[in-house]
């Protein structure tokens, strides 16, 4: 048989092995300790190496060999697989895939020298710490064909690591208007000094700056396929501050859009009307796109959870089946980063306090393997993250007992509370029903921290539980930090927005039930005294005389509750938060401004400030 007779078999088999490698690498990414996955990567790489060598596809064989070298100490357990190593292996696998295709096609042989060097460098280092660097190269103004020189510099940089975010873009380098400065991101294991030296040696380069990259955000186009190339998408790195400025300006543009609509209205000039409508639509679309730029799939944060749950379960002798759903749903990057820790807490709690030991489960007639679910769903313009287990559930009586013992509620109140209200007690500061200290959940840092963090993000936390059946925590979040759910209230004829996350309830209080307490006033809500503050006095406007009934909104921050007396409610709405211009001497009580659906502007009340101002007004607090 001639070599070409084998190439079909080679191609088919190699493709299979490449997909085995990809799947195993993905498994490793979620679970770096997965020794089965490491073994399958190693086996598949080894097989490809042997086949490619037999076919004299040297490039592929050498690349596979380099991968094998890097994998060997990991397979033998001498080294842990780091994320950098994984990413390098992903790139190398892409290289193998390409190499296999072109080789079998008798195309140009694979030149994998750059990636092989990186694999070797990583293998030699043992740990493959790559640095993210921001590189700027300035060329001599007198350099002939500066674009070509820049291209050479890029080629050199690619020998040193992975180049991304090239500016100006590479295909513009052939244009006449290239200005002689090129910048890009370089992920490299090579030291900055050597990078500088090598790039200066490219010729016509007068200056190279190599600096550690600042905060970054990966903007990914998600592919639908499963290959790592598609999965990781093409991306550029953008300074988060720039994005924030863009989002902010977008917010302003939205205000202008609304104003434009109002000002033009039905016009005698249909052309103008049409143009305004078109501009308004484009601005809306653009806003959505700009918001989307900040979005990343939840999986980027969730990917580390399976390992964490497994470790916690192992440490506690629990058997847990952890199911993650909705990883592909996109959330604001900052939001995701912020919600990561609270979720870790909820997951650990579930493993520690929710799910019983196999023996207990057995005795209760449940399957020994407990189930823990982490699910993300879109809901309206926000998202719900649900952490639920099928464990022992929360005991209503246990919570009440602990709450009474800590003086949080009176025994008489305890009887009237709904389940929801009982579970909400769990989010009061320092509340815990667990007397045990464990390595996994610790003690004291409880749900109050989780609830506060969620609230700071403009979200809410709901708890539901059935004894013996399990517990579910639902975290509701806005899709992005720039959009907030707000309650609209009126005071002295002006509408204000109050972030709904801080509103625990609304109340209509009979004026007769309001009592003086110290310098202030309180009323009893389900037997508990709540300080009542007139929003008028905080805003410095004159308060009208009271009628027989008072409208109040009860705010909750941590374990404190206060009630704000207002004129009335005008509804609920999603608002786009526009930060304040702090050059103006405004009341501290406002955190920003927004534009309402009817086009009128409104100030946003800052709950934190309301609380501290209330405290400043010398209110007694129980």
């Amino acid at each position, binding site marked *: 048989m001639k070599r070409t007779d084998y190439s079909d078999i080679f191609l088919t088999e190699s493709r299979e092995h490449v997909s085995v490698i990809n799947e195993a690498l993905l498994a490793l990414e979620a679970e770096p300790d997965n020794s089965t996955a490491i073994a399958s990567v190693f086996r598949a790489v080894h097989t490809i190496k042997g086949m490619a060598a037999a076919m004299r596809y040297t490039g592929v064989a050498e690349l596979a060999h380099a991968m094998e070298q890097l994998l060997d100490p990991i397979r033998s357990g001498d080294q842990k697989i780091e994320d950098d190593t994984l990413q390098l292996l992903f790139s190398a696998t892409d290289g193998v895939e390409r190499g296999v295709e072109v080789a079998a096609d008798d195309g*140009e042989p694979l*030149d994998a020298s750059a990636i092989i060097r990186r694999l070797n460098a990583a293998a030699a280092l043992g740990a493959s710490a790559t640095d993210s660097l921001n590189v700027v190269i300035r060329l001599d103004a007198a350099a*002939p*064909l500066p*674009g*070509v020189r820049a*291209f*050479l510099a890029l*080629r050199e940089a690619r020998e040193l690591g992975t180049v991304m975010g090239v500016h100006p873009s590479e295909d513009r*380098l*052939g*244009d*006449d208007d*290239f200005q002689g400065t090129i910048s890009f991101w370089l992920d490299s294991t090579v030291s900055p000094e050597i990078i500088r030296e090598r790039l200066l*040696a*490219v*010729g016509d380069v007068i200056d190279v700056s190599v600096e550690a990259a600042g905060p970054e955000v990966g903007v990914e186009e998600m592919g639908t396929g499963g290959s790592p190339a598609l999965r990781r998408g093409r991306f550029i790195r953008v300074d988060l501050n720039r994005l924030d400025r863009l989002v902010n300006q977008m917010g302003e543009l939205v205000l202008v859009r609304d104003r434009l609509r109002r000002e033009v209205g039905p016009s005698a000039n249909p052309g103008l009307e049409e143009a305004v409508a078109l501009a308004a639509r484009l601005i809306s679309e653009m806003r959505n796109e700009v918001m989307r730029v900040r979005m990343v799939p939840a999986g980027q944060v969730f990917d580390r959870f399976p390992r964490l749950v497994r470790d916690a379960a192992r440490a506690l002798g629990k058997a847990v089946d952890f199911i993650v759903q909705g990883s592909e749903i996109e959330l604001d990057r900052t939001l995701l980063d912020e919600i990561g820790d609270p979720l870790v807490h909820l997951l650990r709690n579930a493993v520690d306090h929710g799910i019983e030991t196999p023996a207990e489960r057995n005795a209760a007639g449940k399957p020994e393997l407990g189930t823990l679910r982490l699910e993300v769903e879109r809901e309206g313009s926000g998202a719900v993250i649900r952490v639920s287990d099928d464990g022992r559930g929360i005991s209503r009586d246990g919570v009440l007992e602990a709450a009474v013992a800590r003086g949080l509620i009176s025994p008489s109140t305890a009887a009237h509370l709904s389940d929801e209200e009982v579970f909400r007690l769990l989010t009061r500061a320092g509340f815990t029903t667990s007397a045990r200290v464990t390595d996994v959940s610790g003690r004291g840092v409880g749900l109050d921290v989780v609830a506060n963090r969620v609230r700071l993000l403009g979200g809410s936390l709901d708890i539901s539980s059935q004894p013996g059946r399990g517990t579910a925590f639902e975290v509701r979040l806005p899709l992005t930090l720039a959009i907030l759910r707000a309650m609209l209230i009126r005071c002295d004829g002006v509408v204000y927005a109050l972030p709904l996350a801080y509103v625990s309830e609304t109340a209509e209080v009979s004026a007769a039930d309001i009592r003086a307490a110290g310098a202030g006033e309180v009323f009893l809500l389900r037997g508990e005294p709540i300080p009542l503050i007139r929003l008028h006095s905080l805003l410095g406007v004159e308060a009208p005389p009271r009628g027989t009934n008072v409208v109040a909104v009860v705010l909750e921050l941590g374990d404190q509750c206060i009630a704000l007396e207002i004129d009335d409610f005008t509804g609920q709405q999603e608002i786009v938060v526009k930060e304040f211009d702090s050059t103006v001497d405004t009341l501290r009580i406002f955190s920003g401004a927004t534009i309402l659906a009817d086009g009128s502007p409104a100030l946003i009340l800052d709950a934190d400030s309301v609380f501290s101002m209330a405290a400043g007004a010398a209110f007694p607090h129980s």
Partner: protein
Amino acid sequence: MGRTVLICDDAIFMRTMIGDILKQAGFEVVGEAETGLQAVKKYRELQPDFVTMDIVMPDMGGIDAVREIVESDPAAKVLMCSAMGQQALVIEAIQAGARDFVVKPFQPSRVLEAVQRVLG
């Protein structure tokens, strides 16, 4: 003995000029080619240490010649000689495997710097 060079350009004037610069710097011009085809053939015969390659030549242009040369010898060191305004072509040549470039009219110092980088 100096390093050996093969000079490829369809204009005698250019070959002479670059040849003089290189000879003065101690290089040995072992051959000259007027077309891309000749360049490929002579490279195989002479196995020079490096090649200077014009982009526009009859009978196979410089870029295709680079491609063929580098394919047969991945270690081949080729220096492209280009005119102003040919950046897109030079980039193509570099993608085909050329190591560096100089721009006409030749300045001896620039040519020699580029040769050093190519041989580096």
